[in-house]
């Protein structure tokens, strides 16, 4: 059953040749994206006080807001943003507006210089934080004392967070069903799965934000490209390795290596900055929940995709064959199922679904070379939580993880919300190691 080594070598060469061709195609089209940053540059230039010598006009991130007292703009007030040694300031203009460009994604302390306030005025919240770790622009609103500060009740906040959690959980679900299908049929814990999320998101940026294709067309092409990437991966790398009867742990480490390679190819092609796809959308409010029509469409698409997978697995012949291969590949093969064909279909389907997750993630949140890698552990957590190898389990696990991530930020600092999900994973494994919906015999 040993395949000659050169076949595998050729397979690898094929993968990298494909990447290289994609690379040359991308570098030609990339410069078009340089324009179109959404933040207006017309305002008074911020003054950098200390900490960074690079040209502020090249900085990608900014913090801004408008100072208003009872609807009237307040001008001439100095606002200072600091982070470690870096600090910069801006003065509010006639419209009360201020904007500070900053060099990197971080959490900045934003404070108001009380000495520059008009006499008799005081600020209720002179020290604020601006979190630029997920977005390239952070609004900061200072409230003047005497002005009624709108507070949101805890219940309303919770409902809002649960809604965001549902949205995030659905995104995670379509990506983690991919991991789950691949794990079920081949036994591979694929650490390179996040890179398919990234591919979807980056393709969306390239086609939609940079080349100006309409959203639906760009999304479809991005999904197809990711599906094709899944097919190429399986044909050139994983199938030859299966033929060599490589151990599963060994394959897992190969997937780690592959993920590093793909990630740095993305970095070389797309640079390390966070791409603003600016999906935007119109704000829709119902009750305490404020969302956009874009998000609602994304959620609808996720639900339809999840329903499609469920129907595929339970109603179609290929879907049933897939579950048979997951249960026992040798037995499935003995009943006449072409196991390799099923695995190929699973790879393409899983990759396309994961690409769809990337497209939606890119549209609603952000895209950079680490997008998928950042949520990879959340995907694994979802799959493990639901029960390794069951598609429905992955969905339930993803919804739990999504909710935990969003709701936890009500109680703990925002940067720790992913950690909360991982801690929940560990706790649930102690309590119920087979996962919420898993079968006990898989524990071994």
């Amino acid at each position, binding site marked *: 059953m040993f395949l000659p080594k050169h076949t595998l070598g050729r397979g690898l060469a094929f993968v990298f040749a494909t990447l290289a061709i994609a690379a040359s195609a991308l570098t030609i089209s990339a410069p078009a994206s340089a324009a179109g940053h959404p933040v207006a540059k017309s305002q008074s230039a911020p003054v950098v006080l200390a900490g960074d010598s690079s040209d502020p006009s090249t900085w990608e991130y900014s913090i801004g807001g408008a100072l208003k007292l009872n609807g009237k703009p307040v001008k001439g007030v100095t606002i200072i943003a600091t982070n470690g040694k870096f600090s910069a300031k801006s003065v509010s203009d006639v419209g009360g507006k201020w904007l500070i460009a900053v060099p990197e994604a971080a*959490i900045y302390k934003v404070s108001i210089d009380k000495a520059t306030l008009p006499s008799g005025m005081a600020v209720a919240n002179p020290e604020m934080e601006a979190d630029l770790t997920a977005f390239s622009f952070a609004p900061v609103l200072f409230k003047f004392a005497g002005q009624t500060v709108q507070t949101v009740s805890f219940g309303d906040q919770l409902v809002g967070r649960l809604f965001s959690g549902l949205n995030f959980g659905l995104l995670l679900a379509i990506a983690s069903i991919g991991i789950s299908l691949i794990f079920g049929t081949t036994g591979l*814990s694929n650490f390179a799965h996040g890179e398919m999320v990234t591919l979807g998101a980056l393709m969306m940026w390239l086609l939609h934000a940079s080349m100006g294709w309409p959203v639906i067309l760009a999304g479809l092409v991005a999904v197809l490209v990711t599906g094709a990437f899944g097919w190429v991966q399986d044909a050139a790398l994983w199938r030859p390795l299966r033929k060599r009867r490589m151990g599963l742990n*060994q394959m897992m480490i190969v997937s780690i290596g592959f993920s*590093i390679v793909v990630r*740095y*190819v993305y970095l070389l092609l797309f640079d390390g900055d966070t791409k603003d796809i600016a999906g935007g959308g119109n704000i829709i409010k119902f009750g305490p929940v404020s969302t956009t029509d874009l998000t609602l469409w994304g959620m609808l698409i996720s639900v339809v995709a999840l329903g499609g997978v469920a129907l595929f697995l339970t109603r179609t012949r290929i879907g049933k064959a897939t579950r048979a291969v997951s249960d026992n590949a040798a037995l499935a093969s003995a009943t006449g199922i072409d196991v390799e064909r099923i695995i190929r279909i699973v790879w393409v389907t899983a990759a396309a679904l994961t690409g769809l997750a990337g497209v939606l993630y890119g549209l609603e949140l952000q895209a950079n070379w680490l997008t998928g890698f950042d949520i990879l552990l959340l995907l694994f*957590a979802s799959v493990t939580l639901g029960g390794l190898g069951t598609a429905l389990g992955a969905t339930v696990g993803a919804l739990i993880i999504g909710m935990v991530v969003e709701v936890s930020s009500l109680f703990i600092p925002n940067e720790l919300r992913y*950690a909360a999900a991982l801690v929940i994973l560990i706790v649930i494994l102690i309590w119920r190691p087979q996962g919420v919906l898993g079968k006990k015999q898989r524990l071994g």
Partner: protein
Amino acid sequence: MDFGQIFNLTAGELIGVFTAAYALCALGLAMHFGFTGLLNFGQAGFAALGAYGYAFAALKLGWNMWGSFGFGMVCAAVFALILGLPTLRLRADYLAIVTIAAAQALYFFFGTEKYAAFTGGSNGLSEFGGDFYGYNPFPVGRYDLGIITLSEKEIWIRVVSWGLVAFVAVLLVILTRSPWGRTLKGIREDEDAVRSLGKNVFVYKMQSLVLGGVIGSLGGMVFVLSSQTNQASTWVSNFTFMTWTVLLLGGAATILGPIVGSAVFFMFLMFTQAFLEGLVNIGALPFLSIAQVGQIRYLLVGLFLMLLVIFRPQGFFGNKKELQFNG
């Protein structure tokens, strides 16, 4: 291009502190994976606990060097107990997922501003090596070692870190040749067979996890003591993956393997960096910038890891029969 300088830089890595630190972390992994078959993907977490444990004890508690070393090791041992208790009875890949998740959770925890009073937040902790360098027997000056010139501090940290590598290596040789070590190898090959001989497999696995984790914490400590700065961003999962590459390069079920693997790995990194930068500087690679050279290095690390596992899973020194990556 100055080949003499490239050669010196590369040879300097042979006795580098990072080389020793990664060798220690990989020796811990050899204990886990090579000799017991445990899939630990959270070695960065153990190393981070060593580093933060030392820095916290020295800076915030005002402990001396010995106390700080001990505190770092205890932190790692406790971490191993917490991770091992729920997972060591389950299939191997559960430990893999739980360790990587826990290490990543630690990374988030260390980096957040909320607990900056303890961890220094995103700036991390620095200047905690005063007592450590107070033990330095080398007089102040520059020492010319032929290929590189080092300050007295650089000599001292190298002596200590390579001394630790030698100590751990000897310890592991003794342990793995003892009846205890043979039981561990038995667990790696066939857990049920060992269990049927009346051994408590869980306890053996736990001892291995704690010991390997503590060795990893030593790696973390020398890593941050060299520059006396400790930042959360060091302890990302890439640190773990690089440790795995080092381990598999030399051979997982060997003791010399992780050490030689680390030396070869860092010499390779330094050589490709210096060589590609040289090529960029003379204009031979017009499509690359200096910053991209660093990125290409990591791309090569990933490629290296793949090819290694596919074509030579036993590494330089390993015995192919001994390591079939069961699973």
